[in-house]
């Protein structure tokens, strides 16, 4: 079971942040290869593991840069809004150095701040393990 352990300088302030890559899905990649189309380069961004998020979120610039079209629409609730409509995109997220791969839907929405481009939500965590060791400024994330 692949896992990654991160030592943060200030885990309390920053939260569990990982550097991840976003790519087109493996099925779309196969189709592009068959059709001899260029495959978009992976996009590397910072992602926050957010146990308060029921689903994954990405900034809309990421699927745009990968040239992706949406595979559905969903409503989201936040502390200050209800039934906000957003598209979702089927994408591949990976941490290549540690062999972690997840493929699934990501909701496209504007995120606060410059640092974070993605939220890893409980739809990913349901397939994994998150160990948060606050006093050591360390966390470990594993995916089946």
């Amino acid at each position, binding site marked *: 079971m692949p896992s990654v352990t991160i030592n943060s300088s200030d885990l309390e302030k920053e939260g569990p942040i990982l550097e991840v890559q976003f790519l087109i899905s493996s*099925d*779309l990649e196969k189709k592009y290869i068959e059709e001899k189309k260029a495959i978009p380069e992976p996009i590397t961004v910072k992602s926050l593991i957010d146990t308060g998020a*029921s689903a994954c*979120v990405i900034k*809309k610039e990421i699927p745009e840069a990968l040239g*992706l079209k949406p595979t*559905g629409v969903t409503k989201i*609730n936040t502390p200050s809004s209800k039934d906000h409509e957003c598209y979702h995109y089927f994408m591949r997220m990976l941490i290549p150095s540690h062999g972690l791969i997840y493929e699934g839907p990501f909701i496209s929405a*504007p995120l*606060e701040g410059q640092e974070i481009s993605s939220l890893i939500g409980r739809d990913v965590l349901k397939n994994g393990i998150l160990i948060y060791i606050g006093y050591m400024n360390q966390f470990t994330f594993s995916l089946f």
Partner: protein
Amino acid sequence: MTKNIFLKELETYEKNKQRLLKDSRGKFVLIKGEEIINVFDTYSDAVKVGIDKFGNTPFLVKQILEVDQPQNFTSNLIRVDIPCLP
């Protein structure tokens, strides 16, 4: 308000919702325009067929539920002052 590109697909879903609920509650339906392509056990299976048939074009994958469940976020990291739909 921004136009949802899936208006036609959502209309198709609503027209067929009772039948889909009766036969395939909880499963995932793949819809393109006015056509229901098929019903699948998982979201991933529906997307796989969607990509195979339509490539990188918009198609709707939707879970068949009596009442749609919104996704919930407890933090304010998502900006709601900007519309999600482009």
